[in-house]
């Protein structure tokens, strides 16, 4: 068979619970669903290979947000995340995470994943956040994926690798009915009927274009092209606060974390070109990113991570962590540049924009049971709206979703769907393979993402956004009518391009709707520079209504952990006074 040949085929299977995305949240969701009802069928569908997919493909150096008894309380954590998010938080879901994450740590420990302990056998938690202490290193963090994979095999979860989900199926009664997917190496279509579906497809990480110009040199695993966001949108689910972009401070060009969370507790810090500190706290928040951006724009940029003042042994310890897990090519990159942590500081820059709740707060709307607005459809991890939930949040909320989805599936039957929906989706998926002549997906993707950088990157200017929308509409027209795919691999990229353009449209629409500035750099609107609590102390929900994109306000749920007036703006005071 010729490489990546296109086979025109279609088959159909069914299961009780379908989990889409086998990165971090997905495997845990599948595992918990199966443990809840071992007789039920659980399918884990993955675009890549569950063994090495997602943000943690090479493991992780630590937990960014562990709420460990003795160090932090669920109340404290909920308060910190509420403040870091400018108050726009439904606290129930954050609180539930904070209460349950410790039991997930213990469970991961039982899978063989180790967490750093001190001489007394207590977890050695480090302080990185503004207020509380939540960062827990993982000494054998490179083994995370292997450990989880073993559990999946043991529980007999059905794993389908190299299937990219493209659309959800909804029943005639509005419930979820399943999903449609395509094999990335044969272009064969697989329809999966399911009683409940859990979306775990990660961040929309291929939205902006990295400044290096390399399309796959993104902060997020580049396989995370925002398919989950696009699928939820087309199925009619609501998406929350998409204007709260993800933007991260990263190693310039390499575009991976430097990583201040690892090095910070040892004494490393973010500095300007005078070697001076300018931010109070290295925890990634929109307010911190705004100060970072301001420093880059001022004559005091570039910005660096400074660790050359540390003891040689300390640096060696940091190196072994940073060059072994998470993004292990960091060491190779520094070597190529002639950067030695002992001598030179690390030049930093800011990343391309994306959607991600794991780091900020842009995701498919979910409640504290991981339920979306569509009955039977759940979401967890970076693509679900629980803010700042990182890796442990993906595991914990994945567990919540898995348990709850199985409960739902046990009490329901398959929803009926219209066969014409499948036929229509098959035509849409295969369309680029049917054209003789046209534009290849890499060019369309590049252009769309270049436009995202030119027009949608903060600071957000209304006039620029309107122009951006016009240009993106032209790209969409090319994509829908002229894009070609000559083999099944190119078809994978063509379908990803469609998700990227959908996400770009959503980013523009959501940003224009919220006529204020909030979350520091994430939603900095030059024409509405002030925070406007009178009109905008609310979530925004974006959804498809009568075939069109629309946004509405949604009230923030009453707090369960009160925030005092003098605590509300703690994250607004990121700039160090003395250096200002």
């Amino acid at each position: 068979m010729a490489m990546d040949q296109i086979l025109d085929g279609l088959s159909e299977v069914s299961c009780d619970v379908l989990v889409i995305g086998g990165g971090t949240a997905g495997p845990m969701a599948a595992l918990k669903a199966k443990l809840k009802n071992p007789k039920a069928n659980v399918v884990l569908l993955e675009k890549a290979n569950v063994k090495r997919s997602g943000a943690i493909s090479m493991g992780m150096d630590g937990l960014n947000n562990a709420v460990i008894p003795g160090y932090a309380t669920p109340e404290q954590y909920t308060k910190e995340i509420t403040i870091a998010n400018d108050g726009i938080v439904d606290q129930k879901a954050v609180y539930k995470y904070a209460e349950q994450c410790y039991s997930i740590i213990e469970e991961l420990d039982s899978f063989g994943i180790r967490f750093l302990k001190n001489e007394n056998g207590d977890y050695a938690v480090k302080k990185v956040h503004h207020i509380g202490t939540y960062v827990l290193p993982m000494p054998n963090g490179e083994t995370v994926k292997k450990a989880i994979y073993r559990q999946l095999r043991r529980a007999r979860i059905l794993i389908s690798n190299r299937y990219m989900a493209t659309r959800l199926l909804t029943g005639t009664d509005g419930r979820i009915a399943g999903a449609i997917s395509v094999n990335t190496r044969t272009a064969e279509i697989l329809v999966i009927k399911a009683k409940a579906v859990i979306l775990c497809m990660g961040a929309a990480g291929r939205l902006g274009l990295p400044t290096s110009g390399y399309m796959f040199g993104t902060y997020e695993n580049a396989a995370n092209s925002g398919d989950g966001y696009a699928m939820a949108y087309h199925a009619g689910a609501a998406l929350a606060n998409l204007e709260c972009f993800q933007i991260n401070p990263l190693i310039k060009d390499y575009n991976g974390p430097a990583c201040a969370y690892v090095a910070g507790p040892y004494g490393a810090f973010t500095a300007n070109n005078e070697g001076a500190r300018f931010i109070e706290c290295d925890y990634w928040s929109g307010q911190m990113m705004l100060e970072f951006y301001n420093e880059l724009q001022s004559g005091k940029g570039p910005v660096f991570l400074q660790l050359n003042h540390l003891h040689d042994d300390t640096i060696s310890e940091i190196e072994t962590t940073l060059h072994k897990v998470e993004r292990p090519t960091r060491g190779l990159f520094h070597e190529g540049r002639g950067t030695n942590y002992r001598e030179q500081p690390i030049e930093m820059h800011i990343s391309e924009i994306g959607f991600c709740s794991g780091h900020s707060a842009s995701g498919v709307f979910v409640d504290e049971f991981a339920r979306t607005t569509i009955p039977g459809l759940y979401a967890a991890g970076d693509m679900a709206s629980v803010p700042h939930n990182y890796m442990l949040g993906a595991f914990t909320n994945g567990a919540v979703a898995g348990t709850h989805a199985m409960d739902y599936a046990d009490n329901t039957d398959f929803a009926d769907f219209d066969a014409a929906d499948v036929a229509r989706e098959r035509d849409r998926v295969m369309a680029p393979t049917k054209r003789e002549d046209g534009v290849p997906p890499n060019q369309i993707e590049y252009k769309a993402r270049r436009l995202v950088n030119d027009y949608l990157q903060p600071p957000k200017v209304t006039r620029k956004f309107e122009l951006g929308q016009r240009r993106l509409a032209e790209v969409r027209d090319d994509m829908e009518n002229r894009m070609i795919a000559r083999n099944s691999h190119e078809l994978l990229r063509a379908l990803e391009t469609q998700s990227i353009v959908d996400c770009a449209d959503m980013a523009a629409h959501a940003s224009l709707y919220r006529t204020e500035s909030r979350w520091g750099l994430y939603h900095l609107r030059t024409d509405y520079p002030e925070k406007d609590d009178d009109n905008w102390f609310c979530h925004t929900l974006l959804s498809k209504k009568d075939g069109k994109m629309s946004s509405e306000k949604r009230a923030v749920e009453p707090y369960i952990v009160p925030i005092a007036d003098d605590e509300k703006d703690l994250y607004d005071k990121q700039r160090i006074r003395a250096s200002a």
Partner: protein
Amino acid sequence: MPLASYETSVPVVVDDAKCIADKGCTVCVDVCPLDVLRISDLTGKAFMAYDECWYCMPCEADCPTGAVTVNIPYLLR
């Protein structure tokens, strides 16, 4: 519209002498999150077929014979 191909120097290199794909190994092809590695019909060895790499390392880390080297993609080196 006519198409032209666009040459790039790819970041991932396979040492043919060490690669045992001709004995049935497909590990690197299996694990790559971006699905950019393939076994060549011509040489029977693994190679990078598409320059769409996240320089993440599973291919190198999981290769049983140490045949794979991941370099930083040229544009960001």
